[in-house]
């Protein structure tokens, strides 16, 4: 019995030590433990589907570009930064623009930028479609050299940030029950009932309509539309602040977004589809653009009920449009090994 206990103890100790053994890049040697980065997994946003999920544009640095460690040997030491971009959402991206910041451009200078030749790099990306289920894909490559190394400096560890600003849209078509007599007998067999029936499953955009609550009277239909910015690190802002033609000195994304610019979302008046008798919008409050508080906002809309006794379901088209900023960062350790 004692020997069995000792054997069990030995096996547990083996497991304990083995899980402490790591490879040089932080991965566990035998597949246990957390990985250093989720960005290289296939389960990340780079495999999202159309009109689902919370992603618009997804970006990441290509593996080893830049490398985590660079040895500066002389003026002109090169290294590359490659940013991979993919449109994981349902809306076409036109004229998005990318900046690289976070480092001293006197020390690290770009020599060639593809595409475009200079920063910011502008690009278009198709959305996820049936014919392109992965979404549009682009890479931006920036070839850099380390030129004016400050004298007496042993190392420089900048954090390179890739920021992308673009305009996006969220479209949702929740189905609403049109019931001119919502308070009639509950025993009546109706084709649909007025209730909060919208199941959110993502709209293929970073700002989502997460719920639609419905209330009705014989004359009016009320909708309470919940809006939310689904990405913790993404920034939604007034789309007027999107401008690829202006540089760091202007008051536009990404350099000069102020508190009054962010968390602003424009919406079009919700509209029931169809050309026949349908509820007519009376008003929506608050007016467009709405401001998200703690990443959330609510739009209240009032419709007049159509003059019909029919009970039926109809989708209501809700469209949001806004500017969005995504960014990724990576630290690079540049070590001076140049002989003096």
């Amino acid at each position: 019995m004692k020997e069995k206990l000792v054997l069990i103890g030995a096996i547990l100790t083996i497991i304990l030590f083995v899980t402490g053994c790591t490879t040089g890049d932080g991965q566990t040697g035998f597949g246990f433990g957390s990985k250093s980065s989720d960005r290289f997994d296939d389960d990340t946003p780079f495999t999202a589907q159309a009109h689902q999920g919370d992603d618009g544009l997804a970006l990441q640095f290509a593996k080893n570009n830049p490398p985590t460690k660079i040895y500066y040997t002389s003026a002109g030491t090169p290294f590359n930064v490659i940013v991979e971009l993919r449109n994981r959402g349902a809306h076409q991206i036109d004229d998005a623009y990318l900046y690289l910041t976070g480092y001293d451009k006197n020390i690290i200078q770009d020599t060639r930028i593809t595409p475009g030749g200079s920063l910011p790099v502008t690009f278009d990306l198709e959305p996820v479609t049936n014919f392109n289920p992965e979404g549009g894909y682009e890479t931006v490559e920036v070839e850099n050299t380390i030129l004016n190394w400050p004298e007496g400096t042993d190392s420089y560890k900048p954090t390179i940030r890739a920021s992308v600003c673009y305009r996006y849209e969220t479209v949702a078509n929740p189905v609403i029950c049109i019931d001119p007599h919502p308070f009639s007998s509950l025993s009546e067999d109706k084709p649909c009932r007025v209730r909060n029936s919208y199941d959110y499953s993502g709209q293929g955009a970073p700002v989502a309509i997460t719920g639609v609550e419905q209330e009705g009277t014989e004359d009016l239909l009320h909708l309470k539309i919940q809006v939310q910015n689904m990405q913790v690190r993404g920034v939604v802002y007034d789309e007027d602040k999107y401008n690829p033609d202006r540089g760091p000195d202007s008051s536009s994304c990404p350099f000069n977004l102020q508190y009054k610019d962010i968390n602003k979302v424009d919406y079009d008046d919700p509209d029931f589809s169809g050309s026949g008798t349908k509820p007519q919008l009376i008003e929506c409050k608050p007016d467009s653009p709405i401001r998200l508080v703690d990443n959330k906002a609510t739009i209240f809309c009032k419709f007049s009920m159509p003059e019909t006794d029919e009970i039926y379901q109809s989708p209501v088209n809700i469209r949001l449009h806004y500017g969005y900023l995504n960014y990724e960062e990576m630290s690079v350790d540049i070590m001076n090994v140049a002989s003096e």
Partner: protein
Amino acid sequence: MGMYKITIFSIVVLFFLSGCEIGTQDTVMDSDVHTGTQGLIISTISGSPPKEILHRSPFQIGLELRNKGATNINNGYVLVKYIGKGKDYFNILDENTKAFSLEGKSVLNLGGGYDILLFNVENTAVSKEEEPGYFFGIIGCYDYKTSASVEVCLNPVSAETAKIGLDVCSTDDLVLGSQGAPIAVKKIKEYILPKQESGKSIVYFNVYLQNVGGGSIALLENYTDVCRGKGKTINLEDVKISAKIKNEEMSCEKVGKDKENPEQVIFICSTALEILESHTTILNIEAKYGYITKEIGVTMKVNKIAGDFCEYVCIKEEWGVCDVYGEGTEGKCPDGMKCCTESTSLCERDHQNDGYGCYDECAEGTLDKDKCPGDLKCCKELYVGGCEDEENPNKGNCVNTYGTSCNPFGGVRDGTCDEGLRCCAQSNPLCMTEEELGDSGVNYADEVDNYYCVLESEIGNNKPYTCANTTSSKCPGMGDNSKICCYIESKNN
């Protein structure tokens, strides 16, 4: 039992294996040479000097020098001096100061430069009384540089509505480690003012400096004089620093001691920069100075040998026959030397603690004759620095005596002046009465009813001045420029 042994063996093996790491190592080359709080480190070689020697025997003081800092030492000096009782008990056969140069740490030489210096010393005498030991002091003096490269954050600051926090870095206070030098930058505080009309922001850095090497600081221009005991050390706040950021030289000024930590001195460096986007960059701070190491003490015993050796002091015979070194006495000395009872000259014995000694040149009016050996004179040492230097013990004023001596100006003082001027006691001639001279030292504009120096040729009838009385030797000038001290009765137009 066998099971136990196997289990324990497995656990021990796995204990070692769990320290394993496969794949790439973190660093291939450690390039961080700017660490440590020392520049020059001096240590004695074991057995050199020996702890005990025999009376009259030669020996060596061997010193190991290491440059543990990041800066090359180009003009370093090591000074060895005997600081014990009896000035002439030991004779350093070479110069007591030796020069050296040592390279600092580098990527290819992380240990820094290394050298050995040997000083040949001879014991010439021992004290009559039993001494516990004889002491030598060793100091190193060298030119050095502190070079701190710090990664700082530059975030655009606007006077308009605050921007959202999408900065890549923050401007928190930076606490630094050592930089491979005895003076270190310990802390940096950053302040950025909003953009000015020029489109640039003013960036300020408070730089906190501290002497961490345990030694003393001197100016780069005169650390060798300090080494020889002729110059003065300076305070940390007198060190000059320079700073550079994004290839822009910054303007740096000292603020003073840090009230919270008086060991640190604050400097403020500033410049105007165009900051368009949040980023990090390198701030280079540099200080150049002379450094004097803390004195190392070496002690050794001298064992007397019974015999007819001179038990007192062997003095060079060319300096006289013990005339200023006490009475002659029996005892063998090396050829060319005499055995005398005193190890110090009569001058040093008669003038203790009043600055007198045996010198080649004397300060004016301090000569005390026949108390020094050979051609040396017993007096206060002539100051060879500037006449008006604060350090000059016989400080005077540089005046134009118009060819005469300093007598009309209160007498001569030590020190050098520019060509054509002499170093005299006061800047105005003695002609002025004490009351009139007062503290101003300036001739009054109104000469009438006052003493004033006038040209001899201007006194008398039909001349500019009429004097009630005149005095000579109180005004400067010779020949045609000769002036007389005149009590001016009237000025004749």
